[in-house]
């Protein structure tokens, strides 16, 4: 008993108090800055990118953070220092096009309706549709004693019947397509769809797989995209807080 009580001290004071202003280690690859004026049109970055995330060349060069898996290969291969990753971690958007960046992202805007309906309590059901377990573990970490997303009233629940929305990870495999749709249908209206990770947003590294069935995303409107491979817990929590207008 006393030993257990002594252990409480091990856990104390590790919570990140100011989630909004917390920063991630400087080595973290987050938002990429692009100095397109230096680009020599050599196409090296495009050739090496494993997910076709680089769009345009020269002046128009931009990165699609819905596809990018933040491997850093483009930065390493570029001899003209065009692409530079920063540790800025707030990578989310309510629009798919909003993830295509030349170095900046528009902040996520909430609506009165979302704020009023979900602002104080937001329960989510997670479905892994072919995810590699990294995105899943980071979503799990959101609720641990460091990040403690629960304090904002945002929680993952066991049943879709208790949920206000669905969080999808993974490229959506053929074998998971039906289970995903069923889970979504079991949630009552109004409901939110959040995609976490490059896989979910665009297929990511698995975009050319023959075993995917992404019909779900054609049928339903996605409300929030959160980038990463995997998405960092601070990225996830901040995106959801912004989305809720908190």
């Amino acid at each position, binding site marked *: 008993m006393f030993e257990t009580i002594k*252990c409480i001290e*091990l856990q104390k004071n590790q919570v990140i108090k100011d989630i909004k202003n917390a920063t991630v280690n400087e080595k973290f690859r987050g938002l990429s800055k692009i100095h397109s004026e230096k680009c020599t049109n050599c196409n090296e970055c495009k050739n090496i990118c494993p997910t076709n995330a680089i769009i345009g060349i020269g002046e128009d060069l931009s990165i699609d953070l819905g596809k990018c898996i*933040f491997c850093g290969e483009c930065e390493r291969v570029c001899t003209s220092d065009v692409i530079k990753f920063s540790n800025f971690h707030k990578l989310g958007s309510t629009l798919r096009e909003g993830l295509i960046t030349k170095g900046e992202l528009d902040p996520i805007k909430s609506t009165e309706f979302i704020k009023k309906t979900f602002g104080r309590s937001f329960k989510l059901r997670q479905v892994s549709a072919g995810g590699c*377990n*990294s995105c*899943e573990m980071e979503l799990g*970490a959101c609720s641990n004693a460091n990040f403690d997303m629960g304090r904002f009233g945002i929680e993952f629940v066991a049943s879709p019947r208790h949920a206000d929305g669905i969080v999808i990870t993974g490229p959506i495999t053929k074998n998971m397509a039906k*289970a995903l749709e069923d889970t979504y249908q079991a949630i009552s209206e109004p409901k939110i769809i959040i995609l976490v990770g490059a896989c979910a947003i665009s297929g*990511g590294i698995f975009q050319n797989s023959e075993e995917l069935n992404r019909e779900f995303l054609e049928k339903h409107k996605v409300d929030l995209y959160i980038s990463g491979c*995997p998405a960092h817990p601070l990225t996830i929590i901040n995106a959801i807080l912004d989305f809720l207008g908190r």
Partner: protein
Amino acid sequence: MYLEIKNNQTVNKADIPIDSFKNIKKDLDFKKMRVVQFFVNPENGKNRLYCVFTGNESTKRLFVVSCYVENSFESITPINLALHLFEREIYENFEIKPIGHPWIKPVRKQDNYEFLKSDDMQTHEVAVGPVHAGIIESGHFRFLCNSERINHLEVQLGYQHRGAEKMLKIAPSIQLAESICGDSTIAYALTFAHAIESLSNIKVDKKSEIIRLIALELERIAIHIGDLGGIAEDIAYKIGSAVFGVTRTLVINTMQEICGNRFGKGLIKIDGVNFDIDTKIGEKILSMLDEVQKRVDKMMKAMNNNTSVLSRLEKTAIVSIKHAKEIGMVGMAARACNVKIDARKFDDENFEILTTGGGDVHSRFYIRYVEIKQSKKIIENLLEKLEGEINLERQFVNLAPNSFVTSITESWRGELAHTVITDEKGNIETYKIKDPSFNNWLGLAIANRNGQISNFPVCNKSFNLSYCGFDL
């Protein structure tokens, strides 16, 4: 007739003996040998079956043999249960039938899956998944229960199937390899890199190889701590799950300090690593490990002295040593049954394999603690050997034609094997992955027999097997 090979050694396809199936079958008695890979590679219009195997315990010897098969072969499963999934996989991929296989069912395909049924009026079915209650990957469990007691558990997988082997064959990349099973990022990337490097005769500088091994052990420590927390969570011992949860954060944040990603994505490249560990980071790793050890020690002591914790873990969901050997379990779960199997032995003859006996949830709980301590020591030794510079230059990857290589890594779960075969042009003909979960899922099913269904979550967590590593 077989060829002895070394881990990560490239051999010519033509040098691999072609024996008769009968002879191979004779050699695969589970009492003598353990199968690492068993798959078919179509070559020149014929189906060549390759089998990589090793001695039973604490061995560093590895052998390969092959034979041609037509539309069917005589199933080996009846004399070596460990082969049951390998044979089913061959049937699923090539429609080559293992005749006499007691349990032919789909491995990853979903259609026409038939679960075992019971006519007994007292027995009811419980279906769990593919979407689970927590934030975990997708898979299906079907229980046949007599009130609270599990008579039988069947695990049906394939939901996470993305066709990774096929993708690796067409467009191999380290980024793809490390995304197949994200909780074993380093192990997958390392195994892929070792195989490709061996095939293209690329030598990795010493420092890079040490950094890779440090990362591998860090991954083991991180996941093991997370699992200790998971087990605590599943028996509603909340303080344990909270403390282990934040302790794991220390480890993965250090990984992020090394390479910018908490899971180590982007660290390993073909021919080395992308990020150095300098003295500053080295010292940080050391002090982090000391802190982690201190906390884990304290928490483990509290849990191990708590009778209500022990009553949930001890004698729960037992796999006997006999069963573990019979079904060919590997890795940490096997070592928890006192089976001495560890792939780190392939590379280092003096490697000490640690085991905890018992085969119950507590053994699988405790083996993690033992291995965390062991990995800490390994890292400390490796850090002392760090010197010089890493090589950031990229070498040209040019795979040797008509070759065969098997790379094996001890991931935190156990023996992870990648076998790569190239054609006459040096393109990849087959990329075959065997995740440790492939061996161990049956272990989970056996552990739960006659157990309480309410114990299933903690038992499942104590194995923590991979869905996407299995489904590929």
